[in-house]
């Protein structure tokens, strides 16, 4: 079936296709229409799920944790302040090895209140042990929800998929929706290896002393490493079955490019157009979209970027006191390659609090990175007012 959906509706329909059994969620702009759509899907019988209409995001995540521990497939969605309020439980889900799937609609943090997009909310949760996908289109949102379950339930780690406020969440596109039966062929029903079961009683989450705590953490790291391959295969299998795939990163017109723009989310779409335009004008510019941030696809990023002249990383986020977060990630990945193959990495801060990242903005970055001889480590803030 094909339907015209917003990014938010696509997230809800993704959970419907995947037959999430328990939804535990709390409203926040711009996520609200995800849970309103889910409430509709449950009310009209299209999704056979319990919907716990909790009183806070802290409880929303705790609700997913409880239901998942009982052996059910769960779904939630949130945004900015709500995600921040979940923080303790994000660790809980990850260290508890519960494959919860959540959509986060990127929204700038308060104060002052902003409902517009930037990545500081999700990136502040980067180190909680969740897998992170950044989506570019509504179709990718729906498909990534389904893929997320596949990956999460294979490696027993939770997945957060991220979509930009309004540019995706409230923008309509035509979206293919597989039926629940079709989806079930790709994603069989959730069968946890261990859960709350009176016939096979286990105690979860007891005190862990110095002698084993590290090992628990190490196992998460191993699972994360494994998740790279699992996610890659999940995407390949998805492509085979549904004819659509995205990769963990996506190169765009990079074959012979000296200069690379690194993007994520909807900025990638705008960058495609800008790259086409620049190519026509004879610039040797291409684009690399980062879809998966955790686990970080080190090898792939290294392979693609090594030997380039310069790399411009567009960060719709700011780690104050450090710089753009994707820039740090890319620098980190590129440090350990031979010096003669290592490109200079330029960081750009763009579009905070939903400020438009237009083709002109991206073109000005492409111009700067080609002109400026030295990447001095400082971030360049694009379009700042006096």
């Amino acid at each position, binding site marked *: 079936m094909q339907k015209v959906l917003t990014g938010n509706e696509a997230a809800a329909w993704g959970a419907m296709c995947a037959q999430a059994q328990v939804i535990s969620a709390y*409203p926040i702009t711009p996520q609200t229409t995800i849970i309103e759509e889910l409430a509709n899907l449950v009310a009209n019988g299209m999704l056979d799920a319990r919907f716990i209409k909790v009183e*806070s995001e802290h409880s929303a995540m705790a609700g997913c944790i409880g239901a998942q521990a009982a052996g059910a497939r769960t779904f939630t969605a949130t945004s900015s302040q709500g995600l921040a309020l979940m923080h303790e439980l994000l660790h809980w889900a990850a260290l508890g090895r519960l494959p919860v799937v959540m959509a986060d609609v990127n929204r700038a943090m308060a104060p002052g209140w902003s409902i517009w997009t930037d990545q500081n909310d999700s990136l502040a949760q980067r180190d909680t042990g969740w897998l992170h996908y950044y989506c570019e289109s509504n179709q990718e949102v729906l498909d990534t929800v389904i893929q997320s379950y596949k990956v999460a339930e294979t490696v027993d780690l939770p997945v957060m998929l991220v979509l930009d406020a309004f540019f995706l969440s409230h923008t309509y596109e035509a979206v293919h929706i597989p039926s629940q039966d079709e989806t079930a062929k790709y994603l069989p029903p959730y069968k946890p290896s261990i859960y709350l079961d009176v016939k096979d009683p286990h105690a979860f989450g007891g005190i862990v002393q110095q002698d084993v705590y590290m090992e628990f953490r190490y196992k998460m790291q191993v699972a994360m490493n494994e998740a790279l391959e699992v996610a890659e295969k999940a995407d390949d299998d998805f492509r085979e079955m549904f004819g659509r795939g995205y990769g963990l990163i996506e190169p765009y017109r990079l074959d012979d490019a000296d200069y690379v723009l690194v993007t994520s989310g909807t900025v990638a779409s705008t960058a495609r157009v800008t790259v086409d335009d620049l190519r026509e004008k004879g610039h040797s510019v291409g684009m690399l979209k980062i879809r998966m941030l955790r686990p970080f696809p080190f090898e792939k990023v290294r392979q693609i970027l090594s030997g380039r002249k310069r790399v411009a990383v567009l960060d719709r986020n700011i780690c104050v006191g450090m710089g753009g977060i994707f820039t740090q990630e890319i620098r980190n990945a590129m440090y350990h390659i031979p010096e003669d193959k290592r490109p200079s990495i330029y960081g750009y801060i763009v579009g905070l609090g939903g400020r438009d990242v237009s083709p002109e903005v991206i073109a000005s970055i492409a111009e700067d990175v080609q002109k400026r001889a030295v990447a001095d480590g400082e971030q360049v803030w694009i379009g700042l007012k006096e």
Partner: protein
Amino acid sequence: MEALSYLKHFKEVAEHEIMHSGHVACPGCGAAIAMRLALKTLGRDTMLIIPACCWAVIDGPFPYSACSVPVYQTAFETASITAGAVRAGLDATGKKGINVVAWAGDGGTFDIGFGQLSACAERNDNIIYVCYDNEAYMNTGIQRSSATPWGAWTSTTPGSDYKKERKKNLLEIMAAHRIPYAASTTVAYPDDLVLKFRKAMSIEGFRLIHIFSPCPPGHKALEKNSILEARYAVESRVFPLYEVEDGTKYTLSMDPPTRPVADYLDLQGRFRHLNKKERSFIQQAVDEEWTRLMHRMRIDEAL
């Protein structure tokens, strides 16, 4: 019981206009009227602590504010503790004679801020906590809260999944904390609202005022009917006006002429889907609650 005047006391405070035009509330917004009346009574030596809610928007976008008193916006779940801590800060720096007012919606009060609210009440933090209650999360587009009444449509209780749980009884919960003052009021009775704020100002410790606030888009009601809806809520005993001092001394502010609950429901599209049986169930529940309230008042008198 003395009949309740409408505008006698209101006229006494009518001169001060502390909330100004230029705010961005919807037409017919009960919460805007409530703030106007409250600030008139509280005066300029007042600070407002506002969590995420419609009022976080109504006050106006940066760098504007519709209220000419200090306004501090805070995280959704933290109105009570932030206000309590503002009081601590004022005390610590020797500033006296200021009304510290937490101004939160029902979601911030009944739901996400409920734990903090209870903690502040238990500590008897010296603030006036105002809950303007429009019975759902209106700022985010009409999702259910635990203040949403039984039977109501919201965007998270759609179609046949209309709300099947009853509304929390905030005043009883707060009275059970034995706070010095807890009262209910609404915008259809300006005098009652003014008198209750005056009384709250004369008391120290944790004071809570629960204001029923019609919301035309959220209740699917006509803008011109907001005052009527608030009046019918009282007259039909859906929202009784009373106060509780020290958790035990109950005073009914008004013994309303009984109006059928149907009159109240009929003003609002959010109840339109209910059939006869469901509507009479609501009437029955309202009657029972009223009887319980009368019993509680008599228990207090008997002791």
